[in-house]
């Protein structure tokens, strides 16, 4: 960005550049359906949806824990399920060479899915 566009009162641009760099590669999120990469393209789509569901489950579990509405046994089961699900996701991401930042879908004017 040209310096003359940064107005007085702004802080260092470095932290913003670093943060925006993190999402740069995720922005053109499309299903890569060329013949050589169709498997990875579809895996990315499926894993993105699984990750979305996993995060929703996690959020719901946190709300229940904060509301103290789970028994000790239920907490153990929830913890085990979420932990195994996260580990399985890590394993599948490794198999298909997918990174965390790849797990997103751009919904146009609505922004990114996650």
């Amino acid at each position, binding site marked *: *960005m*040209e310096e003359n*566009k*940064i*107005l*007085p*009162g*702004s*802080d*260092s*641009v470095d*932290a*913003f550049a670093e*943060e*925006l760099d*993190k*999402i740069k590669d995720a922005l053109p999120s499309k299903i890569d359906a060329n013949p050589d990469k169709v498997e990875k393209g579809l895996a990315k789509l499926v894993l993105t949806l699984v990750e979305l569901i996993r995060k929703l489950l*996690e*959020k719901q*579990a*946190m709300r229940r*824990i*904060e*509301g*103290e509405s*789970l028994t*000790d046994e239920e*907490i*153990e089961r*929830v*913890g*085990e399920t*979420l*932990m195994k699900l996260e580990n399985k996701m890590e394993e599948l991401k490794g198999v298909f060479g997918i990174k965390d930042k790849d797990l997103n879908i751009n919904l146009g004017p609505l*922004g990114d899915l996650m």
Partner: protein
Amino acid sequence: MSKCIYAVLDYNKKSALDLKGLDGTGIYSLPYKGISAAVSDMKRDRLKVDNETAAGYARIVEGLMEMHTVLPLRFGTLVKDDSEVAGVLEKYYERFVNNLKLVKGKLEYGLKALLDAEKTTALNEAEDRAGFEQLKGNSPYKKYLIEKLKEHKAGQALIKKADGIIEGVHRPLKELSFLSKFRKMATERIILDAVYLVEAEKKDIFIERFKEIKKKYRDVEFLFTGPWPPYNFIESSNIKKEQN
């Protein structure tokens, strides 16, 4: 030789504009019923799609903005010849005229607010201990859930902070703007990403207001930029896609 269209202008003459195009040739205006397109010659295979060329395109549009009210077109809008340029102006005439009226005499400014996530987490942990009592014990699953609960609370604290920024920073700037848009939590740390369309005569008040507001938020970093061409407030930048 194709024609690269950079922007539509509120200008009614065919004349050379004092700017060079992406290919190094002069930019000129092609008029149609009171508006015109700013174009230059461009060989189709010379148009590179990379950051440097996109930045060059943006600088050209900013140069045009110094001379006229502009509606920037999508980067890489190429058509066959002058008659096709006229065709674009004719086809989208009403949309162009309406958008030019909307942005005439106005400037776009951008504001991003970034928060150090660690500070928010520490703040939140001190305030909110709900749920942790249940997770006491040596079970690996409970230890896992403790970490998840900390992350969850940090996320909630960021959202709470973002809501405060929207109320305390965005709202007063919005009130001074003709139009504005914002996104909350654009990334994990950029908690506000806003754009404002400001009437030129109010720009000094707008900039001063930001400086005053900023003093109240010492734990937040801001990036305040502009003036920009009105990229975020027009609906005419994607004619290339529609043409195809």
